[in-house]
């Protein structure tokens, strides 16, 4: 029997569970430097391109790019891990560069081009990096994987563009996609299952293919 025979999905359960938690939970610590005149929540329009499609949203100014993608556009491939820029699960590519979508406000992306894991490839037509992750078993639970793949794609692009890293020996020479270089550059993506070595195998295959 499938879950949806009852009209219940894992997502639906999570969403309703989240709502009851929100009601029962204690409000967060009050801001200690909040001035007396805190404004009311403000909504704002923002237009951006996500995975090649123009999207217009009206969001609370507090909405992060991550929450806009997940909760407004229902692109739930991008994951919320720590929500503080420490784990990399929320990594997306904006105007060709990888960023933590949790540490960016949606309203700050007017006119930007955002690529999420859903825009890199599809189940029918995987991006080469996605296929390499499958081939090399570059995940276990899979939660960090969309962020890992977006980051991995951007890392190889950074190396190709000659962006140096902490482990680049000669700052004035072109960096190469070595094991050390890729490990250092992927340090903003945490995998608690510890799939790192297989992620590196996947990246190495793609880096080699592009020469």
């Amino acid at each position, binding site marked *: 029997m499938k879950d949806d025979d009852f009209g219940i999905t894992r997502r639906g359960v999570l969403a309703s569970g989240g709502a009851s938690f929100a009601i029962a939970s204690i409000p*967060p610590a009050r*801001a*200690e430097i909040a001035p007396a005149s805190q404004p009311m929540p403000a909504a704002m329009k923002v237009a951006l391109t996500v995975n090649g499609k123009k999207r217009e949203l009206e969001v609370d100014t507090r909405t992060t790019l991550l929450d806009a993608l997940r909760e407004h556009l229902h692109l739930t491939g991008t994951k919320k891990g720590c929500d503080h820029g420490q784990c990399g699960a929320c990594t997306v590519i904006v105007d060709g560069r990888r960023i933590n979508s949790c540490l960016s406000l949606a309203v700050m992306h007017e006119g930007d081009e955002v690529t999420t894991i859903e825009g890199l490839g599809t189940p029918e037509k995987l991006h080469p990096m996605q296929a390499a992750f499958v081939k090399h078993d570059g995940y276990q639970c899979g939660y960090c994987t969309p962020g890992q793949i977006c980051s991995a794609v951007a890392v190889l692009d950074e190396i190709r563009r000659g962006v*140096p890293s902490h482990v680049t020996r000669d*700052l004035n020479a072109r960096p190469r996609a070595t094991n050390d270089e890729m490990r250092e550059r992927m340090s903003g993506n945490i995998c608690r299952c510890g799939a790192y070595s297989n992620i590196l195998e996947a990246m190495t295959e793609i880096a080699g293919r592009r020469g």
Partner: protein
Amino acid sequence: MRPFSYERVATPAEAASAAARTQGAKFIAGGTNLLDLMKLEIEAPTHLIDVNGIGLDRIEPTPEGGLRIGALVRNTDLAADKRVRKDYALLSRALLAGASGQLRNKATTAGNLLQRTRCPYFYDTNQPCNKRKPGSGCAAIGGYSRQLGVIGTSEACIATYPGDMAVALRALDATVETVKPDGSTRAIPIADFHRLPGDTPHIDTVLEPGELITAATLPAPVGGTHVYHKVRDRASYAFALVSVGAIVQRDGSGRVALGGIAPKPWRVEAAEAALPRGAKAVAEGLLAGAKPTGDNAFKLTLVERTLGAVLAQTRG
């Protein structure tokens, strides 16, 4: 996160006057530190002024032979700039030792200078912290202080300035350029930019309300061998326990700035005369008057040893 209104501005002057107009306003550029703190309600601006559209995203040569780095130049772009890599390698190295690729793609030059401490008691709103809530006390003193400051601290605060980039800027004698809401500008030597805590640790820098950083300026290149050595609990993506930024010339003279040990990038010019005599002599001058806690006294030894490693590296 507390509610806030939001506006985009098109020029530095507009940004500064918008800040003067709205009480409780803050500038936002990369947002990587500010949004983190807003989620925790450690920062609660009532209004955000998005300065990403005001230009200031170029690195330009100065008439004096140096470089003027726009406030909005991203850390990735600054570290990768050919002129910086060649003539100010210390700056590239320091930037690349900090944060993650994702964060460096967003973080700006000005924002990096203004990042706030990572003292765990500043972050924990259940604890007293004079930096977060003036007059509430300091839970770090007598608390878990392994990562915290050993010099320049006060009875009110032992937090460190967490960044790497500013350590390099300190060794390079950079200048911070600003514009005030009344339109006047000033140039602040990096040595004077960050404050010591004294009894007002909630004020990190000498910037006045509404004053906007427009650039960081580097003097003409000084040559020498540039090394940035960061010692931390992980090989990547961690804040420094101790970092040493050094520029050493062929004759053994040079400059040294330290990170991870003080409320600001730590440099003692008088101590640099001892460079030809080795790490121990320099470390003594740099750390004179240090007041470590039981948890972080190891940093004094670590400074000397890291400096020793750096000097060995500069000798090839």
